[in-house]
């Protein structure tokens, strides 16, 4: 069940045609492992926006996850869609595709590995994850806690008797 969002993201990654030109799309693993050779080059990266938008004046940090790693993306705020949906618990965030320069150890940001974005495009909208959760667990929990309370009472009584 957990794999559903992951599969979705991956399928999106494969199906989507990048409109940003002829640049190759990289996965987060490739970006990290080939950071040395890709350093200071323009790359395209695609994934789900997760967590928070951390504003830094005219720019903002996004964390974009392709299901394996989340890559830090530094975006000018005018490129941000106004109603950007962020991935949280039970919510899949917007999938975005970004074009930007990869910095292996960014000089402006204390050596972080990041992508300075010049072009951002939302390829699909976020949506709440519909998942069925079994309700009978509540019953199990209720029964267990009932027995546990009785047990606690029993131990307490035994304790008082032995006093």
């Amino acid at each position, binding site marked *: 069940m957990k794999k559903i969002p992951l599969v979705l993201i991956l399928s999106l990654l494969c199906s989507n045609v990048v409109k940003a030109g002829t640049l190759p799309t990289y996965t987060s693993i490739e970006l990290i*492992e080939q950071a040395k050779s890709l350093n200071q080059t323009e790359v395209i990266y695609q994934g789900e926006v997760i967590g928070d938008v951390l504003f830094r004046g005219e720019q903002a940090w996004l964390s974009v996850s392709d299901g394996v790693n989340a890559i830090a993306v530094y975006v000018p705020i005018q490129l941000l869609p106004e109603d950007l949906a962020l991935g949280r618990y039970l919510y899949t965030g917007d999938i975005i595709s970004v074009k930007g320069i990869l910095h292996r*150890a960014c000089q402006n*940001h204390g050596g972080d*590995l990041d992508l300075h974005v010049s072009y951002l495009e939302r390829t699909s909208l976020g949506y709440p994850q519909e998942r069925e959760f079994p309700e009978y667990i509540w019953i199990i929990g209720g029964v267990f806690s009932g027995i546990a309370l009785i047990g606690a009472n029993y131990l307490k009584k035994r304790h008082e008797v032995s006093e």
Partner: protein
Amino acid sequence: MVIEKPVKRIYPMLYFIGIIIVVLGCLQLVPLVVSLIYKERFISSIFLATASFTILVGEGLMAIGYRYRSTKLSFGEGTVVAAGAWLLGTMLCALPYYFSGSCLSFIDSCFDVMSGLTTTGLCLIQDMDHLSNGINMWRQTLTFTGGQGMVVLALTFLTKDQSNAYKMYVGEGKDEKLFPNAVSTARQIWKISIFYLIIGTVVMTFAARSAGLAWDRAFLHGMWVYMSAWSTGGFAPMSQNILYYHSSLFELCAVVFFVIGSLNFALHHAVLSGRVSEIRKNIETITFTISFIILSSLVTVGLMKNNVYPDLLAFLRKGLFHLISGQTTTGFMTVYAKQFYYEWGDIALVAMTIAMLLGGSACSTAGGFKALRIGVIFETFKTEVKKLLLPESRIVEYRIHHIKEMILSDSLIRSSFLIVTAYLVTFTVGTLITLLFGYPLTMAAFESASVTGNVGLSIGVTSTSMPLLLKITYIIMMWLGRLEFMSIFALIAFILKGGLKK
């Protein structure tokens, strides 16, 4: 006539294990509350079920051993209680992970719990960026409890039958006495921790807020990162770990708290009760500082040679941050695991490996050899050389300063060497097993040191796709490293001797 019947030794032990399990069950109420606040229905139901199940198991054990609860345990049995409670407790604490689907298998769940309780900080948890607040709270609660010690926590609730307290306390890898009584000591440890928890949560909340999080998320993240930092754990709520926040202020606050957390509780106690000069004189802080200076120069050389980071700030925020994080056995990261391997170069990695093995202070939340033992061993070498130069008839006694003046006695030296050797053996075995699965040497050594020292920095070995045997090996290594070997060997010997049958 009264004839005393021999008590089956297992029963009183079960009673004490039961108490610890009950406490662990009650602990699951913390994430239950958080998940209820955030209306995470499914997670709440899971925590209700697992919490009451855990409490039930504990009560069952207590009931079995109830009649024998005032039986005196031997030292060995006390440590067996500690080790056994850790083993059983880990499995029970893994239930929420498993049933909520946060981990793929039960072994993965156990790995994560052990990693949390031993304050290691490696994780196999799935899809961390979409994790519920309840589960995140549970991870940090585990880390926070494991750092101070679950036995220590259980002891604080012990009001009667305290004669066995000290033996269990020792079994959990702590031996300082802040107070003559182990129960008072345990309470003081928790008082110190809660005191810092309040301060730390406030500070980290503001730091997280300044990093750009909304207030409620800043509070949760601040509290979680603080709990992890103080316990030198290394769990962070997001998969990018500390890198997620992109804030040097946030990193700095975290560093301050995990350095404080890696100090000996006895030192905290001394400083909080007014003996500030203790920080300067203590052999642990001296050893830690000296070894840190040496290792940081090594890391500097290594990173400079490979030209890894462009400027001083980057060097501080990456190089030194990870070295401190490694030596205090915290394991917070601001780079991706693989970056260590692809970018850092051998010298820096070896220095990091050594740092992770050395570790923080004894009787703290840190792991590794512990600075006290390094200090003792170093002093022993020094005194042996000094003795060579003195006439044979001269009788000398050497001292070290740890809270008070201590004589460098043979038993102290022996236990230090013993534990350090055990760590080294575990580290070597771990490295070998990792090598057998086809990982390169630097990676194997780095990850193995990280696991043995309960650090949690990863170079990329730990992942859900790693072999099952390796997962189990790492679980055992974390357990050994946290409980400092002896209690686990006692447990194994107890089982082999048929203690369960009799």
